[in-house]
């Protein structure tokens, strides 16, 4: 009985963080229709950013978060305008390969700068945990999840209520019409991409509490994010959230109930991806475009 409670608690906390990573990618694809295979590296760089902020500046990752997000937005904006904008009308093969190439550059840059040694950010308070209803919850996990869900909520509200948010939704639906109402489309594309990078970086900073940080952590995150999208849906926040929690639950269950589950839990995302696609080739909600 207790065990199940623990699984659920851990899933909820992990799910919150996964949501943040997935929503970023979902937003960027929904608007620009470019699939960014370097999204995992935004997460990775965010994690390293949090680590170095803590190590060099003694800045708590949560305090570093706004700066990391600002840096992510700026970097994403610049990258889009300089490089990625060329992909807007290119065949999908080019998009995949170019962003994959970017991922490669970033991974190896990280490897060169910071070596392959595993890092972790564990501010002191993160190590403490408390007991609630027989379930152990670590402060680190709780804060991470709370932060993640707050950011997702903020983005959701921004999309629904603000001028730019509405413009972003409009751009996602009809590029021509967006131009006609006076939206500066190249700028908004780049801004959206920047925001998605910022969200990835935030996810990374938050993940740094619970995962080891390595230059290659992005690849697994990318696969997880895709698994989430196949589970829940591209281009909408609600779907990404559902998918994220489902994946988190599956991973946690495997980690607890399968012998040596910790090692296998990495493979859960892959298995989920395949399993869903076998059963429902169009993704659970039929949102994956086949032909």
């Amino acid at each position: 009985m207790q065990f199940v409670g623990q699984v659920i608690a851990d899933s909820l906390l992990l799910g919150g963080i996964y949501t943040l990573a997935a929503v970023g990618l979902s937003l960027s694809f929904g608007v620009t229709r470019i699939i960014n295979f370097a999204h995992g590296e935004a997460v990775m760089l965010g994690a390293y950013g949090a680590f170095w902020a803590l190590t060099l500046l003694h800045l708590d990752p949560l305090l570093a978060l706004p700066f990391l997000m600002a840096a992510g937005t700026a970097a994403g904006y610049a990258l889009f305008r300089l490089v990625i904008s060329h992909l807007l009308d290119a065949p999908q093969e080019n998009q995949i390969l170019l962003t994959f190439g970017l991922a490669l550059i970033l991974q190896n840059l990280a490897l060169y700068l910071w070596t392959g040694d595993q890092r972790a950010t564990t501010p002191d308070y993160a190590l403490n945990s408390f007991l609630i209803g027989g379930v152990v919850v670590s402060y680190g996990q709780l804060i991470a999840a709370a932060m993640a869900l707050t950011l997702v909520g903020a983005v959701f509200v921004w999309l629904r209520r603000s001028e730019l948010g509405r413009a972003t939704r409009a751009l996602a639906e009809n590029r021509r019409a967006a131009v006609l109402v006076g939206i500066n489309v190249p700028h908004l594309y780049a801004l959206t991409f920047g925001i998605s990078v910022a969200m990835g970086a935030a996810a990374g900073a938050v993940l740094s509490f619970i995962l080891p940080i390595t230059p290659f952590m992005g690849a697994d995150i990318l696969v997880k994010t895709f698994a989430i999208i196949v589970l829940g849906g591209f281009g909408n926040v609600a779907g990404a959230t559902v998918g994220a929690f489902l994946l988190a639950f599956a991973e946690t269950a495997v980690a607890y109930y399968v012998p040596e589950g910790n090692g296998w839990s990495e493979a859960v995302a892959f298995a989920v991806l395949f399993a869903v696609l076998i059963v429902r080739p169009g993704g659970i909600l039929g949102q994956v475009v086949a032909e």
Partner: protein
Amino acid sequence: MRSLARHVPLIGVMAVLVGAALLQDPVLNDRAFRTATTIMLATSWNLMVSAGLISLGHAAFWGVGSYACLLGAAGLGLPVGAGLLLAMAVGAALGAVQALVTGRLRGAFFAICTLAMAEGLRVAALMLPGLTHGAEGLFAPQALRPTPHVLGVLGALLAVASVGFAFWLSGTRFHFAMAAMRSHEGAAQMIGIDPRRYRVAVVAMSAAMASLAGGVSAWYGGYLDPGVAFGLQTTITAQIAAILGGMFSVGGPVVGAIAVVAVGDATRGLLGGVQGASQGLFGLILVVTILFRPRGIGGLLRRARA
């Protein structure tokens, strides 16, 4: 397109490759062997791309081929020849599975599935040491292992066979089917092509070729672990070689493979100690090529001649 005369340079290159492998110089042999397996990898990757399928997990096929050979030798006493046949069979089977599971998926979703398969196999290999010896690694049984020289020649001949196969394929109905599939599977259906069957065939053939390369490479290197077998660097090599040299053609992957091996060696020579230098450089090449020369070096060459 099919006139042999236009392919004289390609034939020449392959002849040089075999020649280099036949010579007694170990350094040259090594270069020739690595170039040969890269040619096979690139040709194999190119086969899938020609049908519109981007594989980000080509290492999966390479890896199962490697494990098939070494486990077959260690467990069943299979010599090189039989081991390689097994590798091809296993590879083809895995390819067929990948094609069937992904159904009609294209583009990014297909790509991510290939990545998932490769990574999944890597984790499985790691987590099942009873079968694969896990992270500890697996060694090729010395009794069954041929000399590097023999393997070098074998590799070169297999590369010639692979390129020859690709050349033959380019003249068959298959070639047009793939071109049609590349642009639009729906349209392909309209001209009487069953995308499903062609997809299974393409992926299986491509996989078999990559598995063959992985198998002979495992014999050559003599050691295998999940990272070596299923690591991303294999996929990257395959991609860069095909893209740099020019996708969709027969000669392109060959040109690209030679370039990639040369660049890799040069980087190792100049920046040997720098971690991630060659992979990062490959990433840069990939980005720059897609931005400025999506048709690759091969594309350039074709334009110059025409």
